[in-house]
């Protein structure tokens, strides 16, 4: 075969010209689009009027696991559940807890050990059976006791559930537990049809039946989940779309291309690199909300023998000044410029953060948001005061994703100005969790997706031997404050207690908080009524095609 190089130049150019034009057109299609849109500014909600009917197509970033509220564990599954399984409580756009299948917030007894919940009347499951107190008890008991339940630990504070009358249940608690309402505003508060549970047993996930604006229709693994409008829903008039098809598209570029081409109308989690193109496209809109979670650096202080084991002084090669001397940790924090990290690594799309409670939370306070300013000179001084020879060598496990590497490199560069020599250890996520749980690390760049109640963002990370306290942090005062904050129902008092906990964490620095991600959802301009609050769940109950 003759080499193309030996061919005349003219035909080659003639052949490539139309191809090149097509490619340039395609690649610049987004960039050339008008950006003088008068669409509403980016927020987590879109209240434009929509017409009834139509099929909404949603691209999910990953496959949800079992569609059984008792067994489900993945975050992405909560978006599907939002359409088909309502909960006793929900959050509103300001992250306040509001009744959903309950008719009012729980009444807590004087000793804090009983929560009485009134159930909304006239509610039917998707199979036509009636929601009553007995059904609520059946589901709550299943969440607590079913083998393999993913809700068991969330419900561990519950001693029992009693049916008071057909529209009232009483939850008996082992002790006062303020986060209970927030727990019931997640999957632990989802109520399943007792008839369907009896009929399907552990196979409930194959055809879940709950109360929701939509009901489960079909599922093809690794491909799609389809739900259809439920005529039995108590507020069916507000539901606009006839059907929702959730497609699983793992690759972010493919997902974004499908939104641009109109093959899907809603896009779960666009990649940070696609956000500019998404915002510039007048046919698309970006919904955002500040995440409830955080990203930070967890320092191994005393996890010598593995997660859940008593803290113990570290041995080589993980022992070092970061674990031994709080001045080294403070110096490390002072050497980091959170604003610059956000600007350089995430194009300014995220929010610098210095604590586990988001600013939008009702439990946020000045103390919770207090932040040490970037000061590399002070960092060096602290290291000198501690008698440490610079550069101080430390290792840090980071994610092996492109974003994880860029973040690690930014931290490495900034820390070097403060007198540190950071060796990065890029590691696959599951492998990183295995290693850090076992205590095989000095520092780990890790985050948390966040929960509505601050207890879910703090307790298991900072309590001695907490379930996610991989750094082995232990402080009796913090333990006591966390227990107190759990037991108090008064919001102002809890806010104050969490402020104290975070101030103490700022003193000890077991975790150096860095930034808070922003939940993002891409939506076609043809679709309105899509909502996304701080919990990052895509809410489609009132979504439909704009008229």
């Amino acid at each position: 075969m003759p080499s193309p190089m030996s061919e005349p130049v003219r035909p080659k150019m003639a052949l490539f010209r139309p191809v090149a034009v097509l490619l340039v057109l395609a690649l610049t299609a987004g960039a050339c689009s008008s950006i003088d849109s008068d669409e509403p500014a980016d927020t987590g909600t879109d209240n434009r009027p929509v017409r009834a009917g139509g099929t909404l197509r949603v691209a999910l970033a990953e496959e949800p696991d079992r569609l059984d509220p008792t067994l489900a564990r993945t975050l992405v599954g909560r978006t599907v559940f939002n359409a088909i399984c309502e909960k006793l409580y929900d959050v509103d756009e300001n992250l306040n807890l509001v009744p959903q299948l309950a008719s009012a917030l729980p009444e807590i007894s004087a000793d804090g050990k009983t929560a009485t919940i009134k159930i909304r009347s006239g509610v039917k499951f998707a199979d036509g059976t009636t929601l009553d107190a007995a059904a609520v008890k059946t589901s709550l008991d299943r969440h607590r006791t079913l083998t393999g339940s993913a809700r068991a630990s969330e419900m561990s504070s519950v001693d029992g559930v009693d049916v008071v009358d057909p529209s009232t249940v009483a939850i008996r608690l082992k002790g006062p537990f303020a986060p209970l309402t927030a727990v019931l505003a997640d999957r632990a508060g989802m109520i399943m049809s007792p008839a369907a549970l009896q009929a399907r047993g552990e196979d409930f996930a194959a055809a879940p039946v709950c109360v929701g604006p939509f009901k489960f229709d079909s599922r093809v693994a690794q491909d799609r989940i389809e739900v259809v409008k439920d005529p039995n829903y108590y507020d069916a008039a507000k539901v606009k779309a006839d059907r929702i098809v959730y497609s699983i598209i793992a690759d972010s570029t493919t997902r974004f291309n499908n939104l641009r081409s109109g093959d899907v109308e809603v896009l779960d989690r666009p990649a940070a690199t696609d956000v500019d193109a998404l915002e510039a496209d007048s046919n698309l809109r970006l919904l955002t909300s500040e995440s409830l979670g955080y990203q930070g650096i967890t320092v191994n202080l005393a996890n010598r023998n593995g997660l859940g084991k008593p803290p113990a002084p570290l041995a080589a090669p993980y022992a070092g000044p970061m674990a031994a001397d709080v001045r080294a940790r403070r110096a490390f924090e002072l050497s980091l410029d959170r604003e610059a990290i956000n600007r350089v690594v995430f194009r300014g799309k995220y929010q610098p953060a210095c604590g586990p409670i988001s600013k939008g939370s009702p439990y946020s306070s000045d103390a919770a948001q207090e932040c040490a300013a970037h000061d590399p000179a002070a960092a060096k001084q602290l290291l000198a005061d501690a008698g440490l020879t610079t550069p101080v060598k430390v290792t840090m496990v980071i994610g092996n994703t492109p974003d994880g590497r860029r973040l690690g490199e930014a931290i490495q560069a900034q820390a070097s100005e403060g007198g540190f020599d950071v060796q990065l250890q890029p590691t696959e996520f599951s492998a990183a969790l295995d290693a850090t749980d076992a205590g095989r690390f000095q520092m780990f760049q890790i985050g948390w997706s966040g929960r509505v109640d601050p207890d879910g963002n703090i307790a298991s990370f900072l309590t001695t031997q907490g379930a996610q306290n991989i750094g082995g942090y232990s402080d009796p005062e913090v333990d006591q404050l966390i227990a107190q904050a759990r037991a108090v129902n008064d919001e102002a008092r809890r806010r104050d207690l969490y402020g104290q906990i975070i101030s103490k964490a700022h003193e000890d620095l077991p975790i150096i908080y860095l930034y808070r991600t922003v939940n993002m959802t891409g939506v076609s301009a043809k679709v309105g009524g899509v909502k996304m609050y701080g919990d990052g769940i895509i809410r489609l109950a009132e979504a439909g095609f704009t008229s």
Partner: protein
Amino acid sequence: MRRYLLRRLLESVVTLVLVTMVVFAGVRALPGDQVRALVGEESDPAVLEQLRHEYGLDQPIPVQYVRYVGKALSGDLGTSARTGLPVADTIGHALPVTLQLSVFSIVIAVLIGISAGVVAAVRRRTAAEWAANTVALLGLSVPNFWFGLMAVLVFAIAFPVLPASGFVSVFDNPVESFRHLLMPAVVLGSGLAAVIMRQCRSAMLEALGADYVRTARAKGLGGAQVVLGHALRNSLIVVTTIVGLQLGVLISGAVVTEQIFVLPGFGKLTIDAVFTRDYPLIQGVVLVTATAYIGLNLLVDLLYSVIDPRVRVGGAVA
């Protein structure tokens, strides 16, 4: 013959057992397990331990393997760790997608490859041959994922004439099926088309210079009749062999193509199962693939032995 058959059957079973063992141990050697992938950021050791116990992952690997084989022999491939749905059903949904895509790709590849090969051979040293060679070179060297993304950018976004993703079965709606499969089939078939084009071209060149073609021309047959009726007909033997040899490459190419075009086929299923460390699904996929592959090989070997008895005799002597 019976002895040969028994020997080949035994070899096939041993191969199958070895494949399943390697995959069984291999997926477990990956960092992180299915419980880690499922639980994600929530790393409560008690929960991990409980789930590992529930899935039997706290047992020694040989014990897990024996249990798995025991169930598989009775036709139970288990349930997906991720979705809780039966593995057999999941594979059953995915297989027809990949089969339809593969068949469509082969048709396209054969059509493009043979046409381009014939043109390149007949119109030597012209722009047509140069164009055909260039397309063949591109087809061989451009990776599927890049070609696929570009195709989506051009034909689904810049000029939205085809859907960017999705699958419609040809048995449900042939027109929509064609629209959905056209881009993926062209992308998947491009490499095969290039191989066919090059082989077809050289076979055609050889045939066009052969005595029987000269004789045909001497008899006064027209150009088209000589090229299509005589030279091409003989060249098709090569093409058929190439298509057979390239089938495996085509199926493995479907892994990437299905990801790009979000086709719920076997390739996408495999990749997603690996990413979620879904052990039962990975094992099921490999078992089905290995069984099919070994079964087909066995069938071919047996056919050979029927066609040419020396094969089975040779086997016995060796």
